[in-house]
């Protein structure tokens, strides 16, 4: 028997975007982890090294897209988990607004940090 535990409405936009961002995140997260823990090590990270990486346009764009997709995937996941928990009515709208603001603030701050790292601020 096909038992569904998913919090998402099958075929909905949220469901589809959650899958598309997941596919992207699997690849970029693997790259991110390998680069900063196995190729170079997190303990050896320096501002100069970070500036050198981030000033490459391709790396900068990948990292900003990584941030946007991760923020969307996480916020959308949390929202759906709460809806699944029984969130409804005005509370549902308030939670969506708060999560959206938190997500946008995270993207704004992260993008600004990336711009500073690249030396373009």
């Amino acid at each position: 028997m096909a038992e569904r535990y998913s919090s998402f409405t099958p075929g909905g936009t949220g469901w589809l975007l959650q899958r598309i961002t997941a596919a992207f995140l699997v690849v970029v997260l693997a790259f991110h982890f390998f680069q900063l823990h196995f190729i170079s090590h997190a303990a050896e990270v320096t501002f100069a090294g970070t500036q050198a990486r981030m000033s490459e346009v391709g790396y900068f764009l990948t990292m900003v897209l990584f941030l946007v997709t991760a923020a969307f995937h996480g916020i959308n996941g949390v929202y759906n988990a709460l809806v699944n928990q029984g969130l409804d009515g005005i509370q549902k709208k308030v939670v969506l607004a708060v999560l959206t603001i938190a997500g946008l603030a995270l993207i704004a701050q992260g993008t600004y940090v990336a711009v500073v790292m690249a030396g373009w601020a």
Partner: protein
Amino acid sequence: MSQSYNRGLIEDFGRWKEFSAGMWAWIFHKFTGWMLIGYLFTHIAVLSSAIAAADGQTMMVAGESVDAYTGTIQGLEGLFIVRVLEVGLLAVAVFHILNGLRLLMVDLGIGLEAQDKSFYASLILTGVITVASVPTFLTGVGL
């Protein structure tokens, strides 16, 4: 085609003894998801020390003056507990990825009869990858 299934209120954790593999997978996926989004906010907060570094702010690490970004990251990485938390983060991320791929298969109706086995496989593979990564994460740090 998938069909809806009345799973009852899983959020009532008093029912945990009744949980099947699929319910545990669902709970672990939520738990790891909460951890990961929490980490993302923390990660950006730590990396924001780059703003101070670009502004010329410095700090002392092991008796040497370094920029605020390098000092913050190397200071954190010098702590044993941070390295242990990093291994935990890897475990959480690997499980979330493997179980996410499994969920995609379930949603697409592929291998439904093996969904219990694929959950156990996700757990075992997460354990193996996590253990294998320990030497890399604990390099150059003492208790």
